[in-house]
């Protein structure tokens, strides 16, 4: 019963919250009321069985609590101006799907990306503040403050559900995609805290992106994002060894890749690419799909990957894209051609271990062992993730032999 209750709750909570906020406003008070409705459900459902319409049950229970709470606030403050709006006989509709609206509300432009992420996990993902804090490795009190500040800011900005106009929608959906991508990356890159979570952030990001894709099936970038997540998640089991150290793509055991996930990702991106404007998520997904379809690293279709990175560099230029493009060019035109592509980046005053790590691998391929060792050492010096640092030290030490 416990896990079933949990499943129902996680599926229904954004809908219940959305229904209440749409009807009454007061995001903060609605959230409290939804939490209380869950407590009530936890008492009643195990004894009486799951109601036929859990969402309707939760919306009714939460509405009663909310109306009571708002009334007692009003009585205390002696403000009765809108009390007549709160007649409980007019319960909010329970058949509408409001989770998308809640997601778009959480991605309000008045919030910082970190706050958008935290609020999305809380209000749309149904995670507790403790779970979100554990996922981001920050104290619970810090995360609690971040979430309440975000809610206060929404209130101050007068943000309400359903206030997204048709003209705002593309920008809001774009920021929702960025938020979901951040959630996924946080889960994927985290090496420490993720084991402590019963709900991995990557799974949560995929679940919410699936939902967004289901609601906006013709949005090709959302399809691209979902494909990118699935294709990346498919490699999870092969990405770290028993010690938790990083295994690069070239050395991964492809037998441990999740084939059904890869097939689903490939289908999504193949349908999205010809259907609409090509964006960065679709191109990154297409690159991940080419890797996913190669039976071995040596079988990778490098000319296609180099071309996809060229397109990506044209629409969304960045240092990371240039570095990845150089790696693909090394496979088609040799390491010296790739190293030449990196030269302009070396002149920029940006520090970071990644450029040195890519250079080190290319120098190693080119047979320039002494320079490669120095570059691996420099990359290790700049690295801020312990598993990456250990990997780079190992590479430098191996070249010293």
């Amino acid at each position: 019963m416990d896990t079933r209750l949990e499943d129902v709750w996680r599926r229904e909570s954004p809908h219940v919250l959305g229904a209440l906020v749409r009807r009454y406003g007061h995001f903060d008070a609605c959230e409290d009321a939804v939490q209380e409705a869950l407590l009530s459900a936890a008492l009643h459902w195990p004894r009486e069985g799951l109601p036929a319409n859990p969402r309707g049950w939760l919306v009714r229970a939460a509405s009663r609590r909310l109306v009571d709470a708002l009334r007692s606030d009003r009585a205390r403050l002696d403000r009765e101006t809108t009390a007549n709006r709160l007649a409980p006989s007019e319960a909010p509709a329970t058949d509408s799907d409001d989770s998308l609206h809640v997601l778009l509300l959480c991605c309000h432009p008045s919030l910082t990306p970190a706050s958008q992420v935290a609020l999305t996990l809380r209000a749309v993902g149904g995670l507790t503040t403790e779970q979100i804090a554990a996922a981001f490795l920050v104290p619970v009190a810090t995360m609690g403050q971040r979430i309440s500040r975000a809610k206060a800011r929404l209130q101050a900005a007068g943000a309400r559900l359903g206030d997204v106009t048709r003209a705002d929608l593309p920008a809001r959906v774009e920021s929702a995609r960025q938020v979901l991508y951040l959630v996924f990356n946080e889960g994927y890159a985290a090496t420490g805290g993720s084991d402590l979570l019963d709900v991995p952030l990557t799974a949560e990001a995929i679940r919410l992106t699936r939902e967004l894709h289901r609601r906006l099936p013709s949005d090709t970038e959302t399809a691209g994002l979902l494909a990118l997540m699935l294709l990346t998640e498919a490699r999870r089991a092969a990405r770290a060894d028993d010690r938790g150290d990083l295994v690069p793509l070239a050395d991964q055991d492809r037998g441990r890749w999740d084939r059904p996930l890869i097939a689903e990702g490939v289908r999504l991106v193949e349908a999205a690419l010809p259907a609409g404007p090509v964006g960065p998520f679709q191109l990154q997904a297409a690159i991940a799909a080419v890797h996913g379809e190669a039976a071995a690293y040596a079988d990778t279709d490098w000319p296609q990957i180099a071309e996809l990175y060229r397109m990506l560099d044209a629409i969304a230029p960045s240092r990371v894209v240039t570095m990845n493009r150089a790696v693909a060019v090394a496979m088609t035109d040799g390491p010296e051609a790739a190293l030449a592509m990196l030269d302009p980046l070396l002149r920029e005053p940006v520090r970071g271990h990644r450029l040195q790590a890519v250079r080190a691998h290319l120098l190693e391929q080119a047979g320039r062992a002494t320079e490669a060792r120095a570059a691996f050492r420099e990359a290790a010096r700049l690295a801020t993730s312990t598993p990456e640092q250990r990997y780079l030290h190992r590479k430098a030490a191996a070249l010293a032999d």
Partner: protein
Amino acid sequence: MKYVILIHSNPQPWGHPTGDYIAEHQALPAAQRERLNAEFERLLTEMSANGELVAAEALADPSTATLYRWSGGEPLATDGPYSESKEHLAGFFLIDVSGPERAQEIATAFSGPGETVELRPAMWPGGEEH
């Protein structure tokens, strides 16, 4: 009561866990190294579970630091490291424990050959009365 435990160390090359890159630590017999590591892991797990561990970070190479000093009426940024000494701040733990005895017990277990572990009480209102 809150304390920070500061690890002053000089891993060569810079790396974490620092013990893996410290000659004195590597010179210990393998069995003793394993015992120290296991004890450290056990204590860290216990402190995470009982809430004594508030925060912990391993720090990147001190030469990657940027230092901000006031110069000619405005801040001037230069590259690190902060100190010329042999040992550098390599990481810290913020702990919240029942009293000084427990803090000392933890700091003792965190110490290792070739490193200095600094146990430093945090200031808090009325702290001097304890």
